[in-house]
């Protein structure tokens, strides 16, 4: 069993914590925070699952030397920027919801929306 596998087990535990927060929390901001935790733990997983001691950075490769895998690093770069964009956009939507309903509680917001919908129908 290598160090990378043990360390990436920790990142899976962090993903579980984030998913629990995503499902169980009612506060919208805490939900977004949990989403961010899941994303960061995924990045950690990608970095750690290919880690093995003694690898060199994949810069100027020559045959016969052991290099770290360049593929997950490039994927992680993509993931970080998309995480940033998605977080910013969802914070904006949270801002719109708070301006309209003056609460962050998701169940209260659902109640408000349902009431508005029924008023519109009648």
């Amino acid at each position, binding site marked *: 069993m290598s160090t990378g596998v043990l360390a990436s087990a920790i990142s899976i535990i962090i993903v579980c914590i984030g998913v629990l927060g995503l499902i169980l929390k009612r506060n919208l901001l805490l939900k977004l925070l949990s989403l961010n935790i899941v994303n960061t733990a995924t990045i950690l997983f990608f970095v750690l699952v*290919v880690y093995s001691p003694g690898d060199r950075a994949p810069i100027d490769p020559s045959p016969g030397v*052991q290099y770290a895998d360049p593929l997950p690093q490039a994927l992680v*770069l993509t993931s970080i920027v998309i995480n940033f964009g998605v977080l910013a956009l969802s914070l904006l939507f949270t801002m719109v919801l708070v301006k309209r309903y003056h609460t962050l509680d998701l169940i209260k917001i659902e109640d408000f929306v349902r009431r508005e919908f029924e008023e519109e129908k009648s």
Partner: protein
Amino acid sequence: MGKYSVSLKTLYVIFLVIMFGAFTIGALLIVDDTGVSRLGAIYLERSQKFPNISNVVFGVYGMYRFYDTLFELLIFSTAVLGITVFSDLEPSPGSASRRPVESHVVSASASFLYPIIAVFGIYLAFSAHLGPGGGFAGGVISGTGILLLALAKGAEETARNFREDSMKQLEYVVLFLALLVAILGALYPTEVYRDALGTGVITLVNISIAMKVFIGTWAILHFFVKHRGEV
């Protein structure tokens, strides 16, 4: 309403998530296959044919999988577009009356640190094909450097100094530039990425990514600075 009671549903969710974690860790222990993946080995081997791209990670996201990067830029500019549209629709709550932070430490250190941060970001963007760095890192570093400037000198003045409106139009030009390089690279890979033109085009890719991320980061940060509450 404030505290939730532990219901059967909650316990069920906790149980399911714990089972998911246990199964994934178990699968990881069974497989236990670290080292370079097949695709990664192919990239490492193929990059020896391109001597002016010594950073293989840049080779992956700037050459072999450039479409990933292109669509990522598209997603990022969609997010920035959403924020820009909302920022135009919704006037900021009394930002004109708000003064910048009156701290001599912040303003002095910002005027000292900002040139260093900007040069470092540009350096990372220019040298991404040679060593650690890249367009994303360079763009984010420059964008957050401007945030430091905004904290010291006020957001509105900084936005005026950087001509934010024309910057936002430049963002889409940069996107089309990246698209052009992607199409050219798909049609003539060796000419674009290896021959005499090579390094110029590679640097162009990195600069366009850095510009894109820099403008987007600054637009997002400026929006949140403008619409902040009682801070």
